[in-house]
């Protein structure tokens, strides 16, 4: 058992473990909403638009976590809501508007960071480092989890209606645009809480992969959410553990573990997996052949 627990005897690994549990669950839970709302690509562009906010935060407040937090939050919200505004006012569709806004935001982040006198590596924000999370980062993740999760759970039924069929939801009196905006805000907060640990680029994997995996295994909306959260924790913790023994970057390791789990589900999921499907096809063929022979 020593090999299992040894990594977590170090203080920095214990802190990383707590971070993995918190953001693993938060991202895995949130992922179900993002996937069913088809916001995966929007999430990607939002994660990139966090960068200029970080840069402005660093410029104005130095590396203080709260300055970074509010900088990144406002940048992402400006891009998200700006894209909706652009799409509403013209014939340009929302994904197009997002693509323009987020690449501009990302570029201005790169430009701004070159003015920053404090030595910050761009790479740090792109890939994150879960071993370097501070107590404040943990508190932030904890705070986001405490605010976002109960709200999502409380609004689970109207959100399910919205995701399943927005027009029917509206006809039943669900406040559709309020919930849509709420989802975007919850998404941005979730991303912010995971930024330090996995970085702008790998965020999306931690967010989407657990939900996509569970989606292949079950037909229940609550199971998708809670299962996604549980799988997120499992993937993050085992990825962290593997990265310790292999000596490779933790964020990448976590995403690879989650990607591997997705592949397994894709292949062997009893109902939607590739292999059972192929096997079943042959099975039915044999059965119908036998029936045919009986008749003739």
């Amino acid at each position: 058992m020593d090999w299992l627990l040894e990594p977590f005897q170090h203080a920095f690994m214990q802190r990383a473990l707590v971070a993995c549990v918190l953001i693993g669950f938060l991202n895995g839970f949130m992922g179900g909403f993002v996937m069913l709302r088809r916001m995966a690509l929007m999430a990607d562009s939002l994660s990139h638009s966090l960068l200029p906010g970080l840069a402005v935060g660093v410029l104005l407040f130095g590396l203080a976590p709260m300055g970074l937090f509010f900088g990144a939050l406002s940048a992402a919200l400006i891009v998200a809501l700006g894209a909706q505004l652009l799409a509403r006012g013209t014939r340009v569709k929302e994904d197009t508007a997002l693509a323009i806004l987020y690449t501009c935001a990302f570029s201005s982040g790169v430009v701004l960071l070159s003015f920053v006198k404090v030595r910050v590596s761009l790479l740090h924000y792109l890939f994150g480092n879960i071993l370097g999370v501070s107590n404040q980062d943990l508190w932030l993740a904890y705070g986001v989890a405490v605010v976002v999760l109960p709200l999502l759970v409380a609004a689970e039924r109207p959100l399910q209606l919205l995701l399943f069929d927005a027009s029917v939801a509206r006809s039943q009196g669900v406040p559709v645009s309020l919930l849509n905006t709420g989802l975007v805000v919850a998404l941005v907060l979730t991303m912010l809480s995971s930024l330090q640990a996995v970085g702008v680029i790998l965020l999306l994997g931690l967010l989407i992969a657990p939900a996509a995996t569970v989606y292949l295994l079950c037909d229940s909306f609550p199971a998708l959410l809670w299962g996604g959260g549980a799988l997120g924790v499992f993937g993050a913790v085992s990825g962290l553990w593997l990265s310790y023994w292999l000596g490779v970057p933790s964020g990448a390791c976590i995403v690879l573990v989650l990607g591997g789990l997705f592949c397994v589900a894709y292949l062997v999921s009893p109902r939607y997996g590739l292999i059972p499907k192929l096997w079943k096809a042959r099975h039915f063929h044999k059965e119908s052949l036998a029936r045919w022979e009986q008749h003739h």
Partner: protein
Amino acid sequence: MSSHSLHVEDLTVSYRRIPALHHVGFTLTCGSAVGVLGPNGAGKSTLLKALAGLLPLETGRITFHGREMKGANQEFAYLPQREMVDWDFPTTVRGVVEMGRYLSVRWWKRFSQEDRLAVDAALEAMQMTALQDRQISALSGGQQQRVFLARALAQEAHVLLLDEPFTGLDQPSQEGLKLVFRQLREQGKLLLISHHDLGSVPELFDQVLLLNGELLAAGRVVDVFTQENLTRTYGTRVFSRIDHGLAT
């Protein structure tokens, strides 16, 4: 005006300031199946969506049971076209029917025994009890329509607004759905069904609304489903979107 009736007066609905429906008015009584007929772009879907509270009204009012309806409400259930639905959604037949109860239960509250019984009854009425644990993509087209009808029943809606429910159904499914409609009508529901197959109108509906931007005729099938009215509805394009330079 009878109390068990849907009364629409002077209804105008616009998209981007261009009206799709002009000053439409009619009165329908509960316990009937009403066909909403007209060419493409005539405003059939628009009328159903406006009644469901999905579109803002430019002018006019909608009264049901003598009460003015504004926006979304529990009495009206809107059933979208089948191709508009994500059938891969992680939910079962029962899950969809339960969605009909979401309005009557507070967001975070658990389902009561009454809710469960209402869902059971709705499933039973639509003969979907045996299939209640199926994922919804593993159903036939007719069964998928019955799931949505069961959801409307669980909602205890009195007016069912159906957008092209027969599209893409094979003959046996169409026959089955026909029987279901008859049964719902006998229970006192009011069904408004947009439809484009004129041949089946007399056997499906007892009343029709003939639309083409405006209401050209409304009433019992025997009275208004005439060659003359149909020519007026389908032959000329009154206030059509093409006149405004828009594609249909």
